[in-house]
């Protein structure tokens, strides 16, 4: 198969398959989880503080002073690569064009050199996070195949995208095909790994804040 054939497959049937598996998997998991419902809480709420759930989503998105002290590196690399990934994915023009063709939505892009710099920072943050995970004895003990898989499928699209833009090592057509395929791999693997936290995270935080408020510790 030539590079061009691979690229056309990635932009054609490959994308359809990846998007289908991703949506199927996510629908399945979200409905599966939330259809279990909650046990009815028959007690009286300790303090009527509505909106605690929503506030918790914000407060838990910021690092706690305690967490800084205990693991500053985790906080820094975590924020760096999450924010970086967010910016690269949503504010690079070719990605916005892709989203526009899929959903009709679009917004202004950031200057490409800026996104390029952020990509480098994100890649470095990911590498530092991985090294830290492997070297720290507790983190290493807690890490399993799923963790390393999630890291790999997140790292590959960033790496191949950077390589494609800068024409590093391989022919551009092949690099672009690999970049799109790596993003499709991420999509396919997504619903079956911890990456689903992207969606479940906010619901979980809301729930925690709401329950805490019922028990008297409102946000």
């Amino acid at each position, binding site marked *: 198969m030539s590079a061009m054939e691979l690229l056309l497959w990635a*932009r054609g049937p490959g*994308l359809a398959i990846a998007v289908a598996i*991703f949506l199927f998997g996510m629908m399945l998991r979200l*409905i599966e989880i939330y259809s279990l419902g909650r046990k009815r809480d028959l007690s009286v709420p300790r303090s009527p503080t509505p909106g605690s759930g929503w506030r918790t989503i914000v407060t838990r998105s910021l690092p706690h002073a305690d967490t800084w002290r205990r693991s500053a590196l985790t906080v820094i690399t975590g924020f760096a690569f999450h924010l970086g990934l967010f910016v690269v994915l949503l504010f690079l023009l*070719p*990605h916005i064009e*892709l989203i526009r*063709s899929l959903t009709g939505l679009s917004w202004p892009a950031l200057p490409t050199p800026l996104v390029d710099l952020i990509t480098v920072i994100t890649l470095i943050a990911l590498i530092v996070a991985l090294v830290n995970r492997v070297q720290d004895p507790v983190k290493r003990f807690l890490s399993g195949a799923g963790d390393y898989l999630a890291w790999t499928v997140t790292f590959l699209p960033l790496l191949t995208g950077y390589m494609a833009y800068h024409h590093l090592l391989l022919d551009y*057509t092949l690099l672009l095909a690999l970049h799109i395929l790596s993003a499709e791999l991420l999509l396919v693997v997504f619903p079956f790994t911890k990456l689903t936290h992207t969606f479940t995270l906010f619901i979980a935080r809301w729930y925690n804040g709401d329950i805490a408020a019922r028990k008297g510790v409102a946000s």
Partner: protein
Amino acid sequence: MADETLLDILKRRGVSRRGFLKFCAATTSLLALPPSMAAAVAESLGRVRRPAVIWLSFQECTGCTESLTRAHSPSIESLIFDAISLDYHHTLQAASGHAAEEAREHSMKADWGNYLLIVDGSIPLKDGGVYSTIAGISNLQMLQEAAAGAAAIVAIGTCAAYGGLPHAQPNPTGAVAVSDIVKDKPIINVPGCPPVPAVMVGVLAHYLTFGTLPDLDDLGRPRAFYGESIHDRCYRRPFYDQGKFAKTFDDAGARDGWCLFELGCKGPTTHNACATTKWNGGTSWPVQSGHGCIGCSEPDFWDAGGFYKALSTPVNSVTGAATAAVAAGAAAGIAIGLANRQRKARARAGHQTVTIEDLEK
């Protein structure tokens, strides 16, 4: 006459040594070789004999021939055409009908094993190849016969090189490329829709000059002309690198010459000489005129998504697959959810209350 060298032909036309040097310098430039190779080119051209050339036109629009005859280095072109013996070409030859076919057969026999075969147009295979015939002979048969005695084959245009427009979905005539049929002869692909005139002339010039095939890439294209992508030689590249893109044709960005990525330019994945050699004698080329590259020298460019949709967009719509997936996922999720609830209900129902007396029993 067929045994004359190019130098003999030039001398006969009264061209001086200086003129020959000028011709060699221009040919070296045309072949995209460094100027230091002009001496080698001169030496080769001084020795080369006049090969016979047969041009077969199959399922094509004649755009390639039109483009070639518009090649804007007339001195070079006319000299090259003087240098080759173009024995058969539908559009350019004077003969027609039986006389033309006889001329072709005669030329093939006379120079068997040595002639250069040029093909433009794709070859239809469906229904016994009946969709394109010449004098009652199918393209497939004519190609196989002519290829058998050729020294080398040049597949000119994307149709001959990769199938081109007839090959695009749904390919009703079963069109294929020359390289899909001929497997045992060296083939040079010179794609483009049409190819850049100077590139066509350059490939012929290379074969004339050196008698060998130029260095080819993995798609059979001469690296001298197809080695770089449009993107890598595009004068608008600084705007791509800075992230300045035209949003619509004729907006402020477009008028300032910004990058045409958003308007569908396929420059990054297209290999051709348009960005440097340009068209119409170096006048301009699509991007310079404000239109994105359509990728016409790449295989399946007609099926590579719209010409006006960016390279990062999908080739066809995924809405169908997406909707089906959401529905299926929801259904499966609800089914599993119901099953889970049933299990919970059954567990609750099957719960046996135990009193301390039961336990003490």
